[in-house]
């Protein structure tokens, strides 16, 4: 739990200031402060749900896009290159706006705020996932493919049982980074009205007019969430490490 000590300087900073702060807005000992605080924290569920759903989709899509990137054929590799270059070039915020407002006009399909957010986040992240998977798979020794070939495994089984299990262990830290990144980027979905952490904070600021305190709490909310996630990822890494020894 040493990581949570990083919060200490922040707490110190906050306690050091007095006059300019109006902590009453989020003081859990008063009724309104307590209500405000639980209103803010209630956004965490959507932030988490949206980020996890998006990362699951982006990992799957990323893997699918990574595979043609490993082909010996240039034309097949180009599918991967074009996807990665195009998707990577669009800012996430722009993608969110486009999916929510533009996609219904183009396709006739209207996504609700949650799925529009998830779709945009996943699409944007999938380009990075594709690059991570490609690098991870390429880092596996050629001898592993040859050994799989010599015990007659076909391509699918070779990937599934030999290459990917090893590649995923190697890219786990990078996947953890992407999850952290996703949690942060999910705040952008607030612009289309998603009731997640940032949106809740914005709404509270409008009614209470204490932006300093409320946004400080918002910062802390993300900080805690992300520290929990990254220690979870560390734990997973350690566990996979000891499994091998």
């Amino acid at each position, binding site marked *: 739990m040493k990581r949570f000590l990083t919060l200490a300087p922040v707490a110190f900073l906050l306690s050091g200031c007095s006059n300019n702060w109006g902590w009453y807005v989020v003081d859990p000992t008063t009724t309104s402060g307590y209500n405000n605080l639980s209103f803010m924290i209630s956004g965490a569920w959507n932030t988490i749900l949206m980020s996890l759903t998006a990362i699951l989709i982006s990992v799957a899509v990323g893997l699918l896009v990574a595979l043609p990137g490993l082909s010996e054929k240039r034309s097949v590799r180009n599918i991967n290159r074009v996807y990665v270059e195009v998707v990577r070039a669009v800012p996430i915020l722009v993608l969110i706006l486009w999916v929510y407002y533009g996609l219904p006009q183009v396709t006739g399909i209207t996504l609700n705020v949650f799925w529009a957010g998830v779709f945009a986040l996943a699409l944007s992240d999938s380009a990075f996932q594709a690059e991570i998977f490609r690098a991870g798979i390429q880092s596996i020794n050629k001898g592993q493919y*040859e050994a799989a070939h010599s015990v007659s495994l076909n391509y699918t089984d070779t990937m599934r049982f030999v290459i990917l299990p090893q590649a995923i262990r190697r890219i786990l830290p990078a996947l953890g980074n992407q999850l952290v990144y996703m949690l942060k980027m999910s705040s952008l979905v607030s612009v289309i009205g998603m009731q997640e952490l940032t949106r809740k904070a914005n709404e509270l600021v409008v009614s209470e007019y204490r932006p300093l305190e409320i946004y400080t709490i918002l910062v802390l909310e993300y900080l805690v969430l992300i520290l929990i996630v990254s220690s979870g990822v560390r734990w997973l890494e350690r566990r996979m490490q000891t499994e*091998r020894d």
Partner: protein
Amino acid sequence: METTTTDTLIGITNLSKYFGTFQALKDVSLSVAPGERVVVCGPSGSGKSTLIRCINRLEKHEKGQIIVDGIELTDTRESLDKVRANVGMVFQQFNLFPHLTVLENLTLGPKRVFKISEKEARERALGYLERVRIADQADKYPRQLSGGQQQRVAIARSLCMEPRILLFDEPTSALDPEMINEVLDVMTELANSGITMICVTHEMGFARRVADKMVFMDQGEIVEISDAKSFFTAPKSDRCKDFLQKILSH
């Protein structure tokens, strides 16, 4: 040049292999009868690995023909599947699957390819581990074993697929000297069991003991093919004499 007869398990005729513009194999012909034990030797870069890798299609050849058990090696799915089922390979660097236990390394192929049950695959695997005298290590991971033990596991893994032909590419060159014999002993036993073997090695003691046929390669060509006895006592070409002199003086 040899002619292929009906009693031929592997028939290679006029094989050429290029890497870009570099010709790694030049018009190579060789035939191997069922049960025959062939040892291939020659200086570094002479094309030994390339030759045997062509036999299980880890490398594609550009010219000539390879026929394994009546099937010509081509790009078709059927040909590839047949070849892979018939031919096993043991590598210099073992190439065990590091994320799987010894037992899982052995059962993966049979379970996926022959669709046999976990239990049956396990029994088969333990049988072969017994044969390479390493059954007590079945639940360990490759990295927990010595090089010699790893190579014996790799041999057992190949045997689990019950191939007719086993290829060895310098199976002992990555090993510490004290572990070479435990692997060579296992290979000698295999040689006596009737399986067809093609073995790239510089272990001349082993070659003398087991080889029916010696193949000497240099610069992408097969310079000499002869039986083991005349190979060591009366090598025909000067290149071969030189090579033997160097390698036996160690």
